[in-house]
């Protein structure tokens, strides 16, 4: 039989409390999800360039930058990076610069003692190198879906097991993220008044999440064993090249040319 208080209408006026932490956590997890889940930037790009070629070009650029002592090559690489950035949407440019510029600024601050001693060119070169390298990696990550990135690593002969671990990590990040989001929603829906012990609720969520992740890991291990997993993993290497892939290859050739010309 239903208790008497449950049959009545609740006369309740909530008191004020600070809920910023739960709200911010929800917003940040949602933001992370939308980045993982968004239907990928591929369709929006003008050129459909193979992810493996892109990754190889980015790595070549970083390698040449780190080897080069020539200001001419560093300036050329910087100009090239800005030119590449300008081909993308404003929102993507901002996303890349938001990572590239602070890292470059931090590098410059770290190298300020050299500037004080009168060495201007060294810190300036180093800062530009850092900016270009970080921007290249961010640009690659921002214009590729997670699946393509692991595909690109596969094309570059990165060990399959490492890629499998990376793929599983991304998958479980999403699954546990979804789980924690549901728990945060449940906490928010039931946080209908003043919570004197917010940390206890959040540590409860963290604890359950840990137990859940352990259970998931055990289940996955069992499932892999059931499918005869012995620690080795082989996936099909798919390398589809298109005429658009010639563009980064031509840029690579140009980079190499300038690199060797600047050395002489």
């Amino acid at each position, binding site marked *: *039989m*239903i*208790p008497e*208080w*449950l*049959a*009545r*209408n*609740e006369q*309740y*006026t*909530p*008191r*004020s*409390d600070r*809920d910023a932490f739960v709200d911010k956590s929800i917003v940040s997890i949602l933001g992370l999800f*939308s980045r993982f*889940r*968004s*239907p990928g930037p591929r369709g929006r790009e003008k050129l459909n360039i193979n992810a493996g070629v892109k990754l190889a070009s980015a790595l070549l650029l970083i390698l040449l930058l780190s080897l080069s002592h020539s200001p001419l090559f560093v300036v050329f690489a910087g100009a090239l990076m800005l030119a590449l950035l300008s081909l993308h949407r404003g929102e993507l440019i901002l996303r890349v610069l938001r990572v590239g510029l602070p890292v470059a600024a931090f590098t410059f601050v770290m190298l300020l003692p050299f500037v004080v001693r009168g060495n201007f060119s060294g810190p300036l070169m180093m800062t530009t190198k850092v900016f270009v390298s970080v921007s290249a990696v961010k640009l690659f990550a921002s214009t590729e879906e997670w699946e393509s990135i692991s595909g690109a690593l596969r094309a570059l002969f990165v060990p399959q097991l490492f890629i499998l671990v990376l793929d599983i990590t991304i998958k479980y990040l999403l699954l546990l993220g979804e*789980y924690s989001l*549901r*728990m945060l*929603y*449940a*906490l*928010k*829906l*039931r*946080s*209908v*008044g*003043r*919570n004197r012990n917010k940390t206890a*609720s959040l540590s*409860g*969520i963290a*604890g*359950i999440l840990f*137990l*859940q992740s352990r259970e998931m890991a055990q289940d996955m291990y069992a499932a892999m064993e059931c499918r005869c997993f012995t620690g080795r993993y082989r996936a099909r290497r798919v390398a589809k090249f298109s005429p658009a892939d010639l563009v980064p290859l031509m840029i690579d050739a140009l980079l190499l040319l300038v690199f060797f010309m600047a050395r002489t």
Partner: protein
Amino acid sequence: MIDLRGVSCSYDGIEALSGINLRVRRGESVAVIGPNGSGKSTLLKLINGIILPDTGSYTFDGDEITGRRLRDATFAKRFHQRVGFLFQNADAQLFCSVVHDEIAFGPRQMGLDEAIVEVRVLDCLKLLQIEHLRLRAPYRLSEGEKRKVAIASILSLNPDVLVLDEPMNGLDPKTKRFIREVMLSFIAAGKTLLCSTQDFTYVEGLFVRGVVISADHVVVRDDEYQSILADHEFLGHCNIV
């Protein structure tokens, strides 16, 4: 009490609800029926203010539920106290270390006297017949027990509306029958019930009205529950039976 007008919702550009019109009066018991992926859970989340409509409006007891309105903490908390939500996955709903604290969480939040909190907890434990689980850790319970604890943790808030997302999923027949009895007593107390379900065997006599959402995310029928269930051709066409 609940009034949705032309509500559409999407996740990352993928449509989940399209042009939904739905009015639920106080004391009504409504079944939300539809195939997988039709948007039932999205509709229930929207009614709880977890997500907001892209277009259209949602009014709860005369107050339009908008992002701005929910940023008013006092309003949001009163709203959440009045609408209790049972998640499809009970695990996600239980975050306290023992069942007692789980059920006491809401009443304690409301600032009720500890003696009243204790009365509510014991009443809910008794109502759900889980007194023996009082000091157990929620994550160590069986699915049926977890579901009962989750329901108890919502009922202790004394909500006006109970929103249940597939409450019978994964439960044994005895637990299903028991949860049906609890829902019946909730309705008998004049409260409002909204429940998504695909299991029609154990919800007999529970609903007066049914709302059918199609795979295209639109309401294709809003009718008496029994007449919907009797229309096998329609249910088959909508991929429900």
